[in-house]
Protein backbone atom coordinates (compact mmCIF):
# COMPACT_ATOMS: atom_id res chain seq x y z
CA UNK A 1 0.00 0.00 0.00
CA UNK A 2 1.52 3.28 -1.12
CA UNK A 3 1.04 5.78 1.68
CA UNK A 4 2.34 8.73 -0.31
CA UNK A 5 1.33 9.13 -3.92
CA UNK A 6 2.69 11.51 -6.49
CA UNK A 7 1.43 12.65 -9.84
CA UNK A 8 2.21 12.96 -12.59
CA UNK A 9 4.88 10.33 -12.92
CA UNK A 10 6.67 12.56 -15.40
CA UNK A 11 6.17 16.14 -16.46
CA UNK A 12 7.61 18.28 -19.21
CA UNK A 13 7.34 22.06 -19.17
CA UNK A 14 8.94 24.84 -21.16
CA UNK A 15 11.56 27.07 -19.66
CA UNK A 16 9.90 29.92 -17.78
CA UNK A 17 6.69 28.05 -17.06
CA UNK A 18 5.48 26.99 -13.63
CA UNK A 19 5.75 23.28 -12.99
CA UNK A 20 3.16 21.81 -10.64
CA UNK A 21 3.87 18.54 -8.91
CA UNK A 22 1.18 16.84 -6.85
CA UNK A 23 1.30 14.68 -3.78
CA UNK A 24 -1.33 13.02 -1.61
CA UNK A 25 -1.11 10.95 1.52
CA UNK A 26 -3.27 8.62 3.56
CA UNK A 27 -2.04 8.76 7.12
CA UNK A 28 -3.68 11.64 8.99
CA UNK A 29 -0.91 11.48 11.57
CA UNK A 30 1.62 12.78 9.03
CA UNK A 31 2.37 16.40 9.82
CA UNK A 32 5.74 17.09 8.24
CA UNK A 33 6.23 17.04 4.49
CA UNK A 34 9.67 17.53 2.94
CA UNK A 35 10.27 17.62 -0.78
CA UNK A 36 13.53 16.24 -2.11
CA UNK A 37 15.21 16.94 -5.43
CA UNK A 38 17.34 14.22 -6.94
CA UNK A 39 19.61 14.47 -9.95
CA UNK A 40 20.81 11.31 -11.73
CA UNK A 41 23.65 9.67 -9.91
CA UNK A 42 23.17 11.71 -6.76
CA UNK A 43 21.35 11.33 -3.49
CA UNK A 44 18.16 13.26 -2.74
CA UNK A 45 18.66 16.81 -1.55
CA UNK A 46 16.19 18.49 0.77
CA UNK A 47 14.52 21.24 -1.22
CA UNK A 48 11.74 22.65 0.91
CA UNK A 49 9.45 21.36 3.64
CA UNK A 50 6.17 22.27 5.27
CA UNK A 51 4.45 21.41 8.50
CA UNK A 52 0.74 20.76 8.60
CA UNK A 53 0.09 23.88 10.67
CA UNK A 54 0.80 25.91 7.54
CA UNK A 55 -0.96 25.96 4.21
CA UNK A 56 1.81 27.58 2.21
CA UNK A 57 5.58 27.71 2.24
CA UNK A 58 7.78 29.64 -0.15
CA UNK A 59 11.50 29.48 -0.68
CA UNK A 60 13.43 30.75 -3.68
CA UNK A 61 10.92 30.09 -6.44
CA UNK A 62 9.63 26.89 -4.86
CA UNK A 63 6.22 26.98 -3.18
CA UNK A 64 4.34 24.27 -1.34
CA UNK A 65 0.58 24.52 -1.13
CA UNK A 66 -0.88 22.27 1.54
CA UNK A 67 -4.46 21.15 2.06
CA UNK A 68 -4.84 19.28 5.31
CA UNK A 69 -8.51 18.49 4.87
CA UNK A 70 -7.94 16.92 1.48
CA UNK A 71 -4.63 15.36 2.53
CA UNK A 72 -2.80 16.65 -0.46
CA UNK A 73 -0.10 19.12 -1.30
CA UNK A 74 1.62 20.44 -4.35
CA UNK A 75 5.02 21.83 -5.21
CA UNK A 76 5.06 24.75 -7.60
CA UNK A 77 8.31 25.54 -9.35
CA UNK A 78 8.05 29.06 -10.69
CA UNK A 79 9.98 30.17 -13.76
CA UNK A 80 11.32 26.67 -14.38
CA UNK A 81 14.84 26.39 -15.75
CA UNK A 82 16.56 23.47 -17.51
CA UNK A 83 18.68 23.07 -14.39
CA UNK A 84 15.53 22.21 -12.47
CA UNK A 85 15.20 19.02 -14.49
CA UNK A 86 15.34 16.29 -11.90
CA UNK A 87 13.17 13.83 -10.03
CA UNK A 88 11.21 15.30 -7.16
CA UNK A 89 10.12 13.21 -4.22
CA UNK A 90 7.37 14.13 -1.82
CA UNK A 91 7.84 12.62 1.62
CA UNK A 92 5.86 12.52 4.83
CA UNK A 93 6.50 11.84 8.47
CA UNK A 94 5.19 12.58 11.92
CA UNK A 95 7.03 15.31 13.81
CA UNK A 96 6.95 13.00 16.83
CA UNK A 97 8.97 10.52 14.78
CA UNK A 98 10.66 12.22 11.84
CA UNK A 99 13.14 9.39 11.63
CA UNK A 100 10.57 7.31 9.79
CA UNK A 101 10.05 9.10 6.50
CA UNK A 102 7.73 7.69 3.86
CA UNK A 103 8.60 8.64 0.29
CA UNK A 104 6.40 8.93 -2.74
CA UNK A 105 7.35 7.37 -6.06
CA UNK A 106 8.60 10.63 -7.51
CA UNK A 107 7.85 12.94 -10.41
CA UNK A 108 10.44 13.23 -13.12
CA UNK A 109 10.50 16.83 -14.32
CA UNK A 110 11.97 17.84 -17.65
CA UNK A 111 12.31 21.53 -18.40
CA UNK A 112 12.82 22.18 -22.09
CA UNK A 113 14.68 25.29 -23.25
Amino acid at each position, binding site marked *: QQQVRQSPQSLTVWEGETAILNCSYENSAFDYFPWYQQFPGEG*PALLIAIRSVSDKKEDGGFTIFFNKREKNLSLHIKDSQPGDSATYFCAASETSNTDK*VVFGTGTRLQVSP
Partner: protein
Amino acid sequence: GALVYQYPRRTICKSGTSMRMECQAVGFQATSVAWYRQSPQKTFELIALSTVNSAIKYEQNFTQEKFPISHPNLSFSSMTVLNAYLEDRGLYLCGARDWGVYEQYFGPGTRLTVL
Protein backbone atom coordinates in the same frame (compact mmCIF):
# COMPACT_ATOMS: atom_id res chain seq x y z
CA GLY B 1 26.17 23.42 6.61
CA ALA B 2 24.99 19.88 7.11
CA LEU B 3 26.71 17.40 4.82
CA VAL B 4 26.53 13.64 4.53
CA TYR B 5 29.20 11.67 2.73
CA GLN B 6 28.95 8.11 1.59
CA TYR B 7 31.62 5.80 0.25
CA PRO B 8 32.23 4.08 -1.88
CA ARG B 9 30.03 5.81 -4.44
CA ARG B 10 29.93 2.70 -6.60
CA THR B 11 30.83 -0.87 -6.00
CA ILE B 12 30.59 -4.12 -7.88
CA CYS B 13 30.63 -7.45 -6.14
CA LYS B 14 30.21 -11.02 -7.17
CA SER B 15 27.05 -12.83 -6.23
CA GLY B 16 27.38 -14.37 -2.78
CA THR B 17 30.04 -11.97 -1.55
CA SER B 18 29.65 -9.07 0.87
CA MET B 19 30.39 -5.43 0.78
CA ARG B 20 30.53 -2.67 3.37
CA MET B 21 29.42 0.91 2.87
CA GLU B 22 30.03 3.91 5.06
CA CYS B 23 28.22 7.10 5.95
CA GLN B 24 29.79 10.19 7.48
CA ALA B 25 27.96 13.24 8.79
CA VAL B 26 29.79 16.57 8.81
CA GLY B 27 28.58 19.79 10.39
CA PHE B 28 25.96 18.23 12.62
CA GLN B 29 25.43 15.30 14.93
CA ALA B 30 23.94 12.23 13.31
CA THR B 31 21.82 11.25 16.28
CA SER B 32 19.79 9.00 14.04
CA VAL B 33 20.76 7.38 10.78
CA ALA B 34 18.32 5.73 8.43
CA TRP B 35 19.53 3.40 5.71
CA TYR B 36 17.43 3.15 2.57
CA ARG B 37 17.65 1.27 -0.67
CA GLN B 38 16.42 3.03 -3.77
CA SER B 39 15.50 1.02 -6.82
CA PRO B 40 13.46 1.89 -9.89
CA GLN B 41 10.79 -0.58 -8.89
CA LYS B 42 10.41 0.27 -5.24
CA THR B 43 11.46 3.90 -4.82
CA PHE B 44 12.85 4.32 -1.29
CA GLU B 45 12.76 1.25 0.93
CA LEU B 46 13.68 1.87 4.54
CA ILE B 47 16.07 -0.86 5.65
CA ALA B 48 16.68 0.14 9.23
CA LEU B 49 16.84 3.04 11.59
CA SER B 50 19.74 3.48 13.97
CA THR B 51 19.66 5.89 16.88
CA VAL B 52 22.68 6.37 19.08
CA ASN B 53 22.23 4.61 22.42
CA SER B 54 19.21 2.68 21.16
CA ALA B 55 18.71 -0.63 19.45
CA ILE B 56 18.72 -0.64 15.66
CA LYS B 57 15.24 -1.15 14.26
CA TYR B 58 14.92 -3.13 11.06
CA GLU B 59 11.96 -2.89 8.75
CA GLN B 60 10.00 -5.88 7.58
CA ASN B 61 11.91 -7.85 4.94
CA PHE B 62 15.26 -6.63 6.21
CA THR B 63 17.29 -8.32 8.93
CA GLN B 64 20.40 -7.70 10.94
CA GLU B 65 21.73 -11.00 9.68
CA LYS B 66 21.66 -9.69 6.13
CA PHE B 67 22.32 -5.98 6.68
CA PRO B 68 24.37 -5.53 9.86
CA ILE B 69 24.69 -1.87 10.83
CA SER B 70 27.16 -0.09 13.06
CA HIS B 71 26.56 3.39 14.49
CA PRO B 72 29.42 3.89 16.94
CA ASN B 73 29.33 7.67 17.28
CA LEU B 74 27.48 10.83 16.28
CA SER B 75 29.22 11.20 12.93
CA PHE B 76 29.61 7.74 11.48
CA SER B 77 27.59 4.71 10.48
CA SER B 78 28.29 1.71 8.31
CA MET B 79 26.21 -1.04 6.83
CA THR B 80 27.27 -4.30 5.25
CA VAL B 81 25.32 -6.22 2.65
CA LEU B 82 26.11 -9.83 3.37
CA ASN B 83 25.88 -12.54 0.77
CA ALA B 84 24.70 -10.15 -1.91
CA TYR B 85 22.51 -11.35 -4.74
CA LEU B 86 20.91 -9.72 -7.75
CA GLU B 87 17.89 -8.53 -5.79
CA ASP B 88 20.21 -6.49 -3.56
CA ARG B 89 21.18 -4.21 -6.41
CA GLY B 90 20.34 -0.56 -6.02
CA LEU B 91 21.37 2.75 -4.60
CA TYR B 92 21.90 2.58 -0.85
CA LEU B 93 21.24 5.88 0.85
CA CYS B 94 22.12 7.08 4.28
CA GLY B 95 19.83 9.72 5.79
CA ALA B 96 21.02 11.39 8.96
CA ARG B 97 19.24 13.65 11.41
CA ASP B 98 20.17 15.54 14.52
CA TRP B 99 18.11 15.38 17.67
CA GLY B 100 15.27 17.89 17.76
CA VAL B 101 15.59 18.72 14.07
CA TYR B 102 13.02 17.66 11.51
CA GLU B 103 15.24 17.65 8.46
CA GLN B 104 16.86 14.43 7.34
CA TYR B 105 19.94 14.93 5.17
CA PHE B 106 21.04 12.35 2.64
CA GLY B 107 24.36 11.33 1.27
CA PRO B 108 24.96 10.73 -2.44
CA GLY B 109 24.47 7.00 -2.01
CA THR B 110 26.46 3.87 -2.71
CA ARG B 111 25.41 2.15 -5.91
CA LEU B 112 25.71 -1.59 -5.59
CA THR B 113 25.97 -3.79 -8.65
CA VAL B 114 25.94 -7.54 -8.17
CA LEU B 115 27.33 -9.74 -10.92
